[in-house]
């Protein structure tokens, strides 16, 4: 105290002459950041309402000294990214430590919207924002994962846990059966798929959820829009060099409990005897077997994952730059390197101000990746299905070390370990996404931006099928055919996808009389898309080594060579306009209109018109509003429509295709035939989704608590759908605009943040409720069947009026017949129905159990989904926990191939019915299953709800004092775990099952041996120089 008084005194003495002349006094202090207690360098300190512009900036240790005119005054402390602070002073002195807080109000966040940016408080639609800092602490493997659980209204699920596999993203429910994926726009360029993007390069992800926000994208905005902005340099910022890297190990988090060899033999023995057949002799004495083979242990492994990212960014007065390079490698927990995803990316983002009216810039990203694809989620070929179905008696290898085959299995269920070793399916993709833009400023408020972009992907798929024979005596071919391949084959497929887009936007902004803020925009886009696929194959390679698998090495005859080629193109022209009006930060209005013309529609209905309106009322700005803790309150409402043209090209015209061939002549020459196999519909038009949204944004306690909630109704009409037509037509059905779907839902998200105390924390949560219903499938529209289950030889799902999309449909079980009297008392099921079989409910009471007794037995779409984050910081340590879950959805457990009598089963079969009163759940075993206990029924429907500890991590920031000595600005080390715990009742390996087939909205929630997500432990480092 004394010392500081002394210093103040000395300062005063030193400044005295100045003070005398200008009649000022001096105030000193030191400005520190509340975040880390470090000095804030270069913060501006001004005297409020001071015509002489008195002020200063803080120096290298955050200290300042400022002259203040005599009398009471207010000092304004400001710094980019920190909240402006007002401090009242009345005389000279030392203010001591001034803590500056980060921009705590989310409302002031800049949000990227279609063709522009705005502040969150000014938005009248429904937009979710995910910033780099929300995701940078967590290593995410794919961009879509950054969205999962972070925001309400968006459901993300894994299509597979294998490295590099796609995720399903649904914004506000499944609005269409024509691919429900949102439109992804990276730096203004529409792209398909996000596997090429390094998550490290992402600055922000903005999700336009309501129709009004997405309407500026008119066409293709129907499933919502995800705007991704990559990191740019900042003006007047010295070069920042940052390295981030991590290394981790992934391992399976769960195993299914299946029978061991002894138990398997007991069950098989019983199943044969029940069918009146003689069991294989070895099963007669089950005790002779031990544990046998655990096929899950045989295929699961610990797999490494690693990432390195180096970026340099900065800017001068006139230009900015950001360059980055990333390497990412992930092996699979099934297949290891045979399921590897390896990606290299390089990016250059730059902008330059040429003169006072012209800006130019470019964003260029290049990605090279390879993905080794293993058969997955297939009930016929995937190693996981095989491992879960293979009998435990068969060893992985024979005594001589070669792979063994099962004596019981024939088709489909082959040795999975051997299969993995024989798989050679490598995808290589090279993709350039580049855009150049220029911005011309005609005068204050009026500017024109034009950008040209190219998204070009060149991909190869290299396949090699080697020769193998697992027979004990290969001359006898004693192994089943699936374990023998007597010729090798090489296949090469090449793909090119080229899209280009030219876009022009004219923007005008003007504020009249301070309170009337007006913004108008008009623009157009032209876009062309071309796909080209070609491929070739040959057989008979002299070498069985995949390294030698080139078509020209093959010795096969000309007859065994194949070649194919395919190309298709589409184009789009759009005009759009938007007008925003804002009065006194209180009343917000926005309207957009977009007109799209697509080559996918015939001349009759080529153009679609998509309008929208939205309005916001910032109630908290009203004079009458005075509710203490509420610092901000906004009510918003929007209405708009979007289009969808995701139906493939040329559906409006009847096309005669070659390839309907026949063999004529003594040499069986393939002779070309051609016919149009699909009827055309020249009148097809845009599918339209209309959405109404009402929302409320509330901020309490000066931004400590933010709450947003929305209610919406989303109607899809004119849905493009090839409704089944009578077979009498002889062609595949034409695409028609007939079906309708309705989604309505409610979303809520809240964040509470406390940054001012030593223990800084934030707690956030969101949840979404969505109800999905098909409201019309056209006149006499049959239900759409999906989800084929081979073991029941039937479809598990159907989409029908009055039901959610792809609902499970089948029989209802009603316990087990305990005795013959019960069998006879019940409706007729089957000739062979006996005590111990499942009693199926006779829903129509007609005395017979048949197809008419099926009903809706489950819904694969979650009733609600949620996410929660907890972040804590204390003295350099940080702890982050991220939870995510869904509830109210069902999974169809189709893992066991009951159509084969030799497959292994879950241990629940040990509690089977063996006599009256023994079980009312698990039926008897019988290799013939005369009652068809394995038909599609609620027996296989399980609750798919889960809550997952998606990420937990503990980090430590090395104090700056230590780092300064080695010229490091920031050094953070962390350890983290992904998918640490999953709480679920589901009995399979992983309840998080997305659409199994890419972009097919109707293959939902079916487990056919799903590739599970790994539990990962990793350690990482983040350094900034």
């Amino acid at each position, binding site marked *: 105290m004394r010392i500081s008084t002394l210093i103040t005194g000395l300062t005063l003495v030193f400044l005295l002459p100045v003070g005398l002349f200008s009649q000022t006094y001096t105030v000193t202090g030191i400005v520190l950041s509340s975040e880390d207690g470090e000095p804030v360098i270069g913060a501006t300190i001004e005297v409020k309402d001071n015509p002489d512009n008195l002020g200063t900036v803080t120096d290298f240790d955050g200290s300042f000294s400022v002259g203040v005119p005599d009398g009471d005054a207010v000092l304004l402390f400001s710094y980019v990214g920190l909240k402006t602070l007002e401090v009242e002073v009345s005389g000279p002195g030392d203010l001591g430590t001034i803590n500056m807080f980060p921009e705590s109000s989310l409302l002031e966040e800049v949000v990227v919207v279609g063709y522009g940016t705005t502040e969150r408080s000014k938005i009248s639609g429904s937009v979710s924002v995910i910033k780099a800092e929300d995701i940078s602490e967590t290593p995410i493997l794919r961009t879509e994962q950054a969205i999962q659980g972070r925001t309400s209204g968006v459901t993300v699920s894994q299509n597979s846990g294998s490295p590099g596999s796609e995720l399903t993203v649904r914004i506000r429910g499944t609005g269409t059966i024509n691919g429900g994926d949102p439109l992804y726009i990276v730096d203004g360029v529409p792209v398909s798929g996000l596997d090429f993007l390094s998550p490290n390069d992402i600055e922000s992800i903005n999700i336009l959820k309501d129709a009004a926000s997405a309407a500026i994208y008119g066409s293709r905005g129907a499933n919502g829009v995800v705007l991704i902005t990559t990191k740019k340099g900042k003006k007047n910022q010295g070069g920042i060099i940052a390295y981030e890297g991590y290394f981790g190990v992934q391992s399976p988090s769960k195993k299914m409990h299946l029978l061991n060899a002894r138990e398997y033999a007991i069950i098989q023995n019983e199943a044969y005897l029940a069918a009146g*057949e003689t069991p294989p002799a070895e099963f007669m004495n089950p005790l002779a077997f031990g544990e046998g083979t655990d096929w899950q242990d045989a295929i699961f492994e610990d797999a490494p994952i690693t990432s390195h990212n180096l970026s340099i960014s900065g800017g001068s007065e006139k230009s900015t730059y950001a360059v980055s390079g990333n390497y990412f490698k992930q092996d699979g927990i099934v297949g290891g390197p045979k399921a590897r995803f390896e990606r290299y990316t390089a990016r250059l983002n730059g902008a330059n101000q040429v003169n006072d009216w012209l800006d130019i810039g470019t964003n260029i990203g290049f990605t090279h990746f390879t993905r080794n694809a293993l058969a997955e989620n297939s009930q016929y070929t995937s190693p996981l299905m095989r491992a879960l179905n293979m009998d435990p008696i068969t060893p992985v290898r024979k005594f001589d070390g070669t792979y063994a085959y099962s004596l019981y299995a*024939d088709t489909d269920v082959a040795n999975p370990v051997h299969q993995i070793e024989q798989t050679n399916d490598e995808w290589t993709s090279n993709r350039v996404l580049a855009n150049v833009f220029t911005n*011309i400023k*005609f*005068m204050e408020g009026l500017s024109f931006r034009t950008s040209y972009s190219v998204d070009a992907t060149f991909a190869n798929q290299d396949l090699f099928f080697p020769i193998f024979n697992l027979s004990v005596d290969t001359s*006898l*071919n004693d*192994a089943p*055919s699936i374990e023998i391949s*007597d010729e090798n*084959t090489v296949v090469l497929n090449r793909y090119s996808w080229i899209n280009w887009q030219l876009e*022009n936007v004219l923007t005008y902004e003007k504020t009249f009389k301070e309170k009337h803020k007006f913004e108008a925009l008009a623009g*157009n886009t*032209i876009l*062309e898309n071309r796909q080209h696929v070609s491929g070739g*194959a040959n057989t008979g390679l002299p070498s069985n080594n995949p390294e030698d698998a080139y078509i020209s090495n093959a010795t*096969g005859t000309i007859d*065994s060579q*194949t070649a194919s080629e395919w190309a298709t193109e*589409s*184009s789009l*022209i759009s005009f759009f306009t938007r007008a925003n009006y804002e009065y006194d930060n209180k009343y917000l209005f926005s309207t957009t209109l977009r007109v799209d*013309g*697509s080559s996918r529609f015939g*001349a009759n209905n080529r153009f679609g018109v998509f309008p929208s309106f939205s309005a916001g009322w910032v109630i908290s700005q009203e004079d009458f509003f005075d509710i203490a803790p509420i610092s901000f309150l906004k009510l918003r409402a929007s209405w708009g429509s979007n289009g969808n043209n995701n139906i493939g090209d*040329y559906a409006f015209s*009847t096309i*005669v*295709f070659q390839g*309907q*061939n*026949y063999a004529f*002549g*003594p040499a069986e020459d393939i*002779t*070309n*035939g051609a*016919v149009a*196999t699909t009827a055309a519909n020249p009148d097809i038009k845009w599918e339209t989704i209309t959405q109404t949204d009402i929302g409320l944004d509330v901020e309490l306690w000066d931004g400590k608590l933010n709450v947003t909630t929305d209610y919406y109704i989303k109607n899809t009409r004119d849905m493009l759908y090839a409704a*089944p*037509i*009578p*077979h*009498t*037509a*002889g*062609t595949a059905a034409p695409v028609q605009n007939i079906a309708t779907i309705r989604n309505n839902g409610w979303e809520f998200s809240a964040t509470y943040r406390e940054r001012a105390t030593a223990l800084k924390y934030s707690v956030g949560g969101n949840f979404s409720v969505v109800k999905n219903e098909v409201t019309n499938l056209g*006149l*006499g529209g049959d239900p759409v069947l999906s989800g084929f289950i081979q073991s*029941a*030889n039937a479809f598990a799902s159907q989409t029908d009026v009055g039901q959610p999309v792809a609902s499970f449909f089948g029989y209802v079980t009603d316990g087990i017949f305990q005795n013959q009297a019960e069998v006879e008392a019940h409706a007729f099921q089957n*000739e062979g129905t006996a005590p111990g079989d499942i009693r199926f409910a006779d829903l129509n009471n007609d005395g017979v159990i048949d*197809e008419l007794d099926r009903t809706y037995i489950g819904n694969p779409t979650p009733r609600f989904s949620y996410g929660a984050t907890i972040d804590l910081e204390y003295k350099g340590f940080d702890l982050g926990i991220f939870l995510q879950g869904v509830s109210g959805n069902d999974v169809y457990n189709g893992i066991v191939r*009951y*159509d*084969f*009598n030799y497959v292994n089963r879950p241990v629940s079969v040990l509690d089977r019915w063996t006599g009256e009163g023994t079980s009312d759940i698990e039926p008897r075993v019988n290799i*013939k*299953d*005369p009652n068809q206990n394995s038909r599609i029924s609620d027996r296989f429907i399980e609750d798919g709800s889960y809550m997952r500890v998606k990420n937990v991590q503990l980090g430590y920031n090395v104090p700056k004092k230590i780092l300064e000595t080695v010229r490091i600005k920031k050094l953070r080390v962390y350890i983290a775990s992904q998918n640490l715990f999953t709480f679920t009742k589901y009995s399979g390996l992983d309840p998080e099952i997305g659409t199994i087939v890419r972009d097919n909205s109707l293959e939902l929630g079916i487990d056919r041996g799903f590739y599970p997500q790994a539990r990962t432990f990793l350690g990482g480092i983040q350094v900034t120089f």
Partner: protein
Amino acid sequence: MNNKKLIALVALPLFLMISGCDGFLNREPIVGETEENFYKTADDAIVAVNAAYAALQFERNPAGHFRWFWGDIMSDDSDKGGSGDNDVFELLLLETFQTPLNGELLDSEWKASYEGIYRANVVLENVPPIEMDEALKSRILGEARFIRSYFFYNLVTIFGGVPLADRVLSPEEYDLPRSSAEEVWALIESDLVQAAQDLPMKSEYAASDLGRITKGAAQALLVKAYVYQEKWQDAKSTAEAIVNSGEYFLDPDFTQIFTPAGENGPGSIFEIQFMTESGGTWDNPNEGSLTNVFQRARGQFAGFGFNIPTQNLVDAFFMEDPNNEDPRLKSTLFREGEPMGDRGIFTKDATGFPHDYYAKKYFNSLSEEASFGDPVNNGGSNDRVIRFADILLLHAEASYHSGNEAAARSSLNMVRERARAGETGVLPDVTASGQALLDAIYHERRVELALEGHRFFDLVRTGRASTALGSLGYVEGRHNLFPIPQSQIQATNGAITQNPGY
């Protein structure tokens, strides 16, 4: 920079773009040709009719219909087989006459037939206006008429009267109701009479056209159409026209007929051509057949083990002489201990199943398979739809019913003589008359044509089904026709009605 200039710079390309809109958005297919621009040349006519031939190969995708599903498995000749009762369970329900109404298999049969009919109709509508060689044109129209009537023949024998799609249907006509069986037969007859006039004889075709529909094929199908309608005189005279054409004779070696060398042999009147072509997949075996893999034994023989011959069928080959088997038995099915081509010896252990017999006529050896692609599925065996022996036996039947027993015996004994293959003491000439002669003709059909997809239809046609199949659940007046697929009744909002008894 002058603002006006700038605005002009921006506006001009905008204007150009708007005016160029329509051209930019008009995209014609790159691969393939729009229908309006097709059907201009003789080559277009040929590929158009080739596409109708391709429909004959439909077995699974876009829809499946094995003739042996209906003709053999439904009869007392064979059982379903497969990996167990639940492997294509629908087939088990069908063969035990617990017929499901909404089965996938009947729906596929219906669908594949109408797709073939559509393709034939496309030819019949689009080829006539083409300026081309008239002889070639009438041949092509004849081929299309045959293909259309072949599919209608399948439909009418399986379902009875069906919608008479004798033209490419417009969307307004998609829910065409059923016509009577008589009307369907009338269209088949008129198509085949016309086709028989227009089509060249087998020997008149160039070698490279082997496999195309001949005059003989049209006449042969016409014989069948007459027989079904019991127009015995017409059947007899048409069959005689085939015999007298001199185009066909019985291959002296019965064992050769179902080998690759026996394809399109001297006794072949209509065969669907299949080949072991490369590159097929499970859903699209291209020019290959799935019959081979479906009928081969499982286990080491790499098949699916369907169409398992019954003891009842085997007994039929011992019916004439319990001590001497009919020589055709060894070409009809495999018995334990026999080699299955080059795939090894048939033992129950090697198949993994307790079946005593496996169908042989469509068995293929490993060496006959495609060398590449999905060889398991690409079987090369042609489907022998109409053989000369079949026509001779129908001639015998028609002659019998026309009161000419001598002609009946003559045709019957031609078939038996070939079957004897020079052996003495077996299959003596039939000398019977009256009902005994008719029974002999029926018996001959069963053993000569066993497992070729005829049995069930023959039993129904001749009124013997309830005797032969009653114990399996067959009810006359109900199961003589299969039910119309429920899906098609729904898809037409009830315009198509169900068969009696279902």
